[in-house]
């Protein structure tokens, strides 16, 4: 296998990419690796769509009077930005792309347990996406991605039903993915791969799947009820007819708060893999890190009321939700401390994936700590509904989840594509993204603290400097996201051919050729050692 690099390109060994050609071989594939690539292309498409909405918003906010659009249009922009980014990019990002690609490879199996369901989940996702795109073209929707009632059910005359159907349908794609992962991890591990020998990415994916399976159905029924209320006006969420709009928020956040962990947990798994590989060390406190993923998944279900502190929810329920929200900080902090401890005295090399992982740790810590401000009942009264919240969750979702996603893409790109990308460009992109991100979102913390509310098309003139900074940062961030798109595309054709294990990493996925053959392994491997068995005294790899 080590001779693979010496062979001329035309004689590339058979792998999942050259096993078959033509659009049918992609659209009807049951191979988890090809389905992962289908997802990769589609979520990138939605990322660009959602990103364009963000660009328009940041242009609008350069001017206190609003630079380009009327408030009605602005409402639709932030709504569609949220809906597209959350349901069609962030939630499927790491699980559906990297998870699909890696879970069977990491457990040492030939495919996921249910390949047909896996393909079905992609088609469901696409159908849901089409509904959402249709709603955007047919006039948009202006409720915010949270669809709060009674505005969404009674008053809004935009495309609420179409978006609701889109989100409802896409939920099932998420459910099927989670179900597939749980079964695969339980039943298809290679001989010798015990639970505590599993890479932490699998633990994180497992925890994520639990949330997908337990939470998503509740969102589905909630959205279903919302659509019924919107169509028939029977009063379930309408105070005028005896319903309670807060009930919608309870049901909505029962899923949508844990959904934040659907976005961040897999990114944490990716970061664990990268940190261990580029520090050439075992993860410090492996079991604790593994269990903290499950703890985050479970505790994440008990904190949803912190989105409702100032809505008229009972203050006593608020106290309990506040307390429990603080508890989630514990497993999250454990992870950050353990990554740091892993780095301590490691032979660290700063390849591009590592830069993304380091970016993740810094930005996630910022996002997590500001979350504590919002989990406190008293400070939340001041900060609720301001840009502080916007900045906080972007630090988690963009600074955390997207950095983790990009880190993962860079880490496993040689495995996925069989090619290497230019490391210098990748490092440059990581730096630009980090700087652009902070320039975009740090001013928003200040804006929020000063009292600028989110979701407004206009603002008082004294906030202009910070808003222009944020918009300028968004430009830098946009450039940062564009660069990887270009060189990753470039590398697919012109990049140097990757050897099976270019990073010298542990894990079953590196023990098979890059890119892997359709059946993943010629022989099902036998695992004899724990994850991250890096020889610690060795000098760093070249």
């Amino acid at each position: 296998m080590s001779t693979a690099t010496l062979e001329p390109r035309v004689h590339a060994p058979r792998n999942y990419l050259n096993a078959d050609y033509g659009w049918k071989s992609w659209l009807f594939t049951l191979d988890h690796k090809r389905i992962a690539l289908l997802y990769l292309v589609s979520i990138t498409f939605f990322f660009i769509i959602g990103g364009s909405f963000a660009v328009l918003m940041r242009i609008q906010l350069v001017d206190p009077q609003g630079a380009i659009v009327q408030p009605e249009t602005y409402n639709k922009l932030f709504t569609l930005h949220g809906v597209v980014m959350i349901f069609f990019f962030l939630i499927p990002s790491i699980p559906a792309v990297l998870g699909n690609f890696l879970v069977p490879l990491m457990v040492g199996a030939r495919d996921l347990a249910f390949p047909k369901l896996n393909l079905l989940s992609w088609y469901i996702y696409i159908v849901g996406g089409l509904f959402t795109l249709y709603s955007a073209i047919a006039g948009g929707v202006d409720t915010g991605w949270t669809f709060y009632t009674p505005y969404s059910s009674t008053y809004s005359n935009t495309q609420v039903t179409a978006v609701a159907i889109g989100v409802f349908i896409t939920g099932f794609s998420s459910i099927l993915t989670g179900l597939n992962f749980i079964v695969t991890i339980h039943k298809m591990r290679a001989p010798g791969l015990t639970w505590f020998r599993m890479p932490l990415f699998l633990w994180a994916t497992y925890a994520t799947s639990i949330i997908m399976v337990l939470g998503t159905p509740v969102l589905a029924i909630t959205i279903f009820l919302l659509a019924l209320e919107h169509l028939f006006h029977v009063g379930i969420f309408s105070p005028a007819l005896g319903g309670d709009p807060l009930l919608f928020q309870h049901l909505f956040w029962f899923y949508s708060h844990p959904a934040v962990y659907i976005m961040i947990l897999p990114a944490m798994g990716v970061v664990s893999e990268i940190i261990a590989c580029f520090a050439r060390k075992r993860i410090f406190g492996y079991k604790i890190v593994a269990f903290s993923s499950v703890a985050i998944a479970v505790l994440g279900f008990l904190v949803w009321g912190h989105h409702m502190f100032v809505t008229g929810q009972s203050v006593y329920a608020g106290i309990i939700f506040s307390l429990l929200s603080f508890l989630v900080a514990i497993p999250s902090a454990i992870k950050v401390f353990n990554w740091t401890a892993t780095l301590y005295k490691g032979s660290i090399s700063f390849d591009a994936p590592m830069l993304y992982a380091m970016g993740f740790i810094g930005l996630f810590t910022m996002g997590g700590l500001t979350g504590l401000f919002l989990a406190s009942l008293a400070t939340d009264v001041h900060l609720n509904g301001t840009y502080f919240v916007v900045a906080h969750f972007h630090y988690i979702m963009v600074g955390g989840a997207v950095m983790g996603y990009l880190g993962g893409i860079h880490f496993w790109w040689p495995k996925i594509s069989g090619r290497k990308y230019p490391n210098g460009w990748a490092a440059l992109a990581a730096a630009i993204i980090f700087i652009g991100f902070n320039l975009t979102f740090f001013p928003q913390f200040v804006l929020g603290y000063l009292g600028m509310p989110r979701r407004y098309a206009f603002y008082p003139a004294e906030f202009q400097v910070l808003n222009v900074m944020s918009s300028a940062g968004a430009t830098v961030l946009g450039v940062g996201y564009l660069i990887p798109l270009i060189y990753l595309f470039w590398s697919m054709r012109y990049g140097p051919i990757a050897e099976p294990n270019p990073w010298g990493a542990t894990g079953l996925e590196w023990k098979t050729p890059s890119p892997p053959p359709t059946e993943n392994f010629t022989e099902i491997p036998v695992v004899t050692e724990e994850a991250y068995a890096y020889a610690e005294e060795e000098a760093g790899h070249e």
Partner: protein
Amino acid sequence: MSDAPAHLEAEHTGLAHQFEDLEQQQESDFLGIWLFLVTEIMFFGGLFAAYAIYRWLYFAAFEGGSHILDIRLGAANTVVLLGSSLTMALSVRSAQTGNRRALVYFLIATMILGGVFLGVKAYEYNQKFVEHIVPGLDWAPEGEVLAHLAPGGLQHAQLYFFFYFAMTGLHAIHMVIGMGLLLWLVIRGRKGAFTPHYFAPVEVVGLYWHFVDIVWIFLFPLLYLIGGRY
């Protein structure tokens, strides 16, 4: 996961390429359907939670609404559905013992009982239209029905009937899907697709059917028996 060579077992019917042996495949199918049922529990769970809140808030209205339903039809339908669960369990057993004729007969019996249930349900739905107590579409209760509903407040009674239709409707949709799956099993079963070694589809559909039965086991007291009929 076992050490048995994959290609030997692959000669068996129905072993998918991603599994090493039939046992691994069966365990995976079984775990998969149970996880699917978990999602179903949470799916109905959201609706049951909303029901619980409103029932607690507007008990009188829910009681009034409940007393308009025909308790005899509800109880009879419960018996019908439990009977279909029995025949379903027996068809799985027939597949286990390799009795193909009995398998097909019990599957058809399950479908017939499911059809009876849906027929009764359709009759009940029609009654609601006759009585003008369909929220959103035809809500104008009058006469004796109005007298039942008025004490709890008409708007809140409308909420009760919304839940009545949402819960039984969602349940009925699951029944229809189940009937489709049963039909598929009958067609495959007649061709002899199931053997005592391979009958996972029968078992999986069976579990789904029993789950739908369980939902009804709760819907019956929660919708028909609120507050008692004394």
